[in-house]
């Protein structure tokens, strides 16, 4: 008997226990009275509320948005607070918030995009001038005689003062004849100067910050989730009756990916296909532990599907490496690389590299909470992309977008994992089977790790032709995998002018493992490949790795690259002698340059390592220099560089997922190790590479590129061994 039909019992049993009504606070779904613009309100108590359209995943986006407003508003920092911009209102008002940025940054990403900064600066400036106009009307004096600073309006002539809050209601209704001009950057007093404590720090250290995992609602049920262990597999059989009597159990929910869903009615930054539901079962109970125990006891049979063809990790790696030996789809061709290879003379350097699947391993396991009623949906979610969350909720429930409300929570780590929204898809797929009750769906750590949207496994074969002077005249990259990202390969300086003849080809393998963005997508593998390989070219040319890179960059029109290299070289003691078994390695890469100089963020690193003859590796020190143009918050920049370096370090030293009969093997931190306090090398971040060019580009991703290859190149310097795969802990580093 196919027990899937038991679902009927499941749902009706719940409906009987329902009938609960919730009053849900969603006060800012429409314009509020104290609103100057949708981005900004000022209350009569002087409180300035900045609405932030970027989830706070730990990079300080909320605080940065508040600083940007405060720069022009002239309010006291202690009066500022933030809340998340409501995506429902954005939909209802035709992109109120979204039009201030491109698709990626809008309700995701970072806070220092040019358009976002301009919008927030303008919101602050406009509110300031309207406050002045209101004070001028109150005092019947010319507006030019009024100054605004620290949340106080002062009439210079008479010395009279008003607090912002005293005229806020009046000012909110003032219409200016012209929007004020923004201050030139040179006159900024907060941006680039101050580094306040992040606004949510106080709540975090008291345990009060509400992450997705901390949502508590009246009548809330908990669900423990299990998706098909081989991704893309299907539920074959489940015996819901077997757990019906277990303590606290309300129901067993089956998620069927083939069930009809609603129309796609809301604009989304990525295709909703990336969030496609997986075949799954969930147990719903009064408490999480009850749900989890019942899920563990639930008899389930899965049909593995095509993924089961991949019996071992080695089988997969071999297939990926073999695919790089044949010509494949041309992704980019500049000059004529094949003709250069066919020309006699010079020497050829060739090597194959591979990076494995990696999981984001956010400290907050995947989770989310939803209340699906007949005509309204509420979702409380630690999203990295709130607009994606909204569009998915609309599609999954079939409820019209105007009745869908997303309540963004803090996010316990993103790193790209919570962008595509497969998590909220599953939350809604479960919750819609339990209508009228809020359901908090929790992935166990094991479920989170084994149901990732992973950094893709990728292999590459790189071939270079070096001219008589040792410099490359042609470079060919043939890579393979599935779900790959091009960033950091086709858009690099190497492939965009440094080498006259380049050819990039890619092969797609029939892999079933689901992939997604992982801190510096594409770039996190490509930087390792290319910067290790350039080191191999330098060695073949008999050149110092730093000198070789500087020669390569000699004609590159962005001098900050060389400046970053020279900064890390100087700070790290590059060139100083090291005993055998110790060495330094260098690497440089750029995140999001799009093939252009003076774009994206350039990041150079030097690593110093020691390797015992038995092959035990220790990373002693990492020096990092960078160029993102300009900076608005020195301490936040440092935090991202430090964190990004640690992330790149762990990825390169430790991280790899294995496959067994199509399943992911590793499920928790004892199998997928994380660096801890005692493992930390000294990480030193230097500002000497900064160019001052007019841009404020990202800092979270850039260090993830050069740290790994700098270590691999240092291992070569220390031992003479070239390491062409990560993680390094799995490589034989022994030397004699």
């Amino acid at each position, binding site marked *: 008997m196919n027990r899937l039909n038991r679902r009927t019992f499941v749902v009706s049993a719940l409906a009987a226990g329902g009938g609960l009504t919730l009053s849900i606070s969603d006060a800012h779904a429409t314009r509020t009275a104290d609103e100057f613009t949708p981005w900004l309100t000022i209350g009569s108590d002087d409180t300035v509320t900045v609405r932030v359209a970027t989830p706070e995943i*730990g990079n300080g986006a909320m605080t940065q948005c508040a600083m940007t407003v405060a720069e022009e508003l002239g309010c006291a920092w202690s009066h500022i607070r933030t809340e998340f911009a409501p995506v429902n209102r954005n939909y209802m008002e035709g992109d109120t918030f979204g039009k201030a940025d491109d698709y990626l940054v809008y309700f995701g990403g970072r806070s220092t995009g040019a358009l976002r900064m301009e919008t927030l600066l303008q919101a602050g400036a406009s509110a300031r001038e309207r406050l002045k106009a209101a004070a001028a009307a109150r005092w019947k004096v010319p507006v030019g005689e009024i100054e605004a600073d620290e949340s106080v309006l002062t009439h210079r002539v008479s010395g009279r003062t008003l607090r912002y809050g005293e005229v806020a209601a009046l000012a909110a209704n003032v219409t200016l004849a012209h929007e004020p001009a923004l201050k030139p950057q040179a006159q900024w007093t907060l941006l680039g100067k101050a580094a306040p404590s992040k606004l949510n*720090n*106080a709540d*975090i250290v008291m345990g009060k910050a509400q992450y997705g995992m901390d949502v508590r609602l009246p009548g809330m049920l908990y669900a423990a989730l299990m998706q098909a262990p081989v991704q893309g597999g299907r539920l074959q059989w489940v015996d819901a009756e077997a757990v019906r009597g277990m303590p606290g159990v309300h129901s067993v929910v089956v998620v069927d990916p083939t069930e009809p869903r609603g129309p796609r009615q809301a604009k989304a930054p990525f295709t909703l296909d990336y969030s496609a539901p997986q075949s799954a079962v969930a147990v719903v109970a009064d408490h999480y532990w009850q749900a989890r125990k019942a899920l563990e006891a639930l008899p389930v049979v899965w049909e593995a599907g095509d993924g089961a063809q991949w019996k071992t990790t080695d089988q997969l790696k071999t297939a990926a490496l073999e695919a790089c030996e044949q010509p494949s789809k041309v992704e980019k061709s500049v000059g004529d690389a094949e003709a250069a290879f066919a020309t006699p003379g010079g020497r050829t350097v060739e090597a194959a590299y591979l990076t494995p699947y990696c999981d984001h391993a956010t400290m907050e*396991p995947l989770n989310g909470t939803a209340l699906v009623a007949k005509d309204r949906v509420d979702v409380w979610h630690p999203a990295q992309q709130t607009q994606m969350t909204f569009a998915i909720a609309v599609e999954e429930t079939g409820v019209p977008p105007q009745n869908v409300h997303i309540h963004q929570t803090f996010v316990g780590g993103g790193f790209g994992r919570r962008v595509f929204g497969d998590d909220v898809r599953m939350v809604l797929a479960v919750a819609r089977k339990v209508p009228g009750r809020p359901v908090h769906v929790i992935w166990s750590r094991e479920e989170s790790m084994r149901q990732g949207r992973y950094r893709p496994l990728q292999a590459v074969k790189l071939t270079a032709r070096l001219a008589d002077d040792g410099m490359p005249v042609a470079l060919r990259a043939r890579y393979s995998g599935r779900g790959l990202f091009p960033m950091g390969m086709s858009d690099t300086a190497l492939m965009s002018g440094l080498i006259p003849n380049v050819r990039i080809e890619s092969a797609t393998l029939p892999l079933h493992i689901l992939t997604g963005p992982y801190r510096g997508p594409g770039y996190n593998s490509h930087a390792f490949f290319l910067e290790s390989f350039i080191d191999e070219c330098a060695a073949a040319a008999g050149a110092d790795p730093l000198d070789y890179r500087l020669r390569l960059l000699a004609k590159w029109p962005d001098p900050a690259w060389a400046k970053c290299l020279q900064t890390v070289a100087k700070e790290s003691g590059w060139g100083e002698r090291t005993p055998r078994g110790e060495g330094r390695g260098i690497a440089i890469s750029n995140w999001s340059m799009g093939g252009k100089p003076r774009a994206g963020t350039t990041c150079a690193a030097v690593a110093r390592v020691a390797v015992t003859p038995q092959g035990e590796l220790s990373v002693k020190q990492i020096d990092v220099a960078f160029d993102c143009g300009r900076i608005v918050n020195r301490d936040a920049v440092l935090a991202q560089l430090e964190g990004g370096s640690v992330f790149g370090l762990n990825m390169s030293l430790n991280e790899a997922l294995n496959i067994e009969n199509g399943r992911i093997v590793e499920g928790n931190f004892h199998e997928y190790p994380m660096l801890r306090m005692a493992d930390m090398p000294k990480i030193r971040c230097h500002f000497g590479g900064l160019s001052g060019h007019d841009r404020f580009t990202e800092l979270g991703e850039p260090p993830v590129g050069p740290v790994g290859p700098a270590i691999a190149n240092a291992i070569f310097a220390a031992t003479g061994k070239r390491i062409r795969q990560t993680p390094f802990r799995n490589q034989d580093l022994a030397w004699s």
Partner: protein
Amino acid sequence: MSKAITVNGRALAVDADSETPLLWVLRDHLGLTGTKYGCGIGQCGACTVHLDGAPVRSCQIPLGAVDAPVTTIEALSFDGSHPLQLAWVSLNVPQCGYCQTGFLMAADALLKAIPNPSDADIDAALTNICRCGTYDRIRAGVHRAAAGREA
């Protein structure tokens, strides 16, 4: 079945299976969500609380085995004025912040045992995981709090 435990100085009766990990008792039954679920196997330390003053990983302690007073992050201070909390805020230690309450509970236990810890003491006592990579600032925060206490 009801079990009497003392949490943050309050005597409470918890109606949960005795095998339920203290972590989930705190979070789901008592609403003390400052104690975090990270791994469930005692690896990451996000769930660190004090049991009779000693730091323990609450995911590894079944309710039935709770035989001493429990202190959670909610009672580290009631207003954020604990020297560690002040140091964490002023040094901008947290990034995503999810693991930080566990670190703070481990650090507080360390400072009670060793008021002025060395780097090696910190390495040995703070074995928690932070995926954002805030380790260097955590170390600085412990030193700052220790110095403040001495003063």
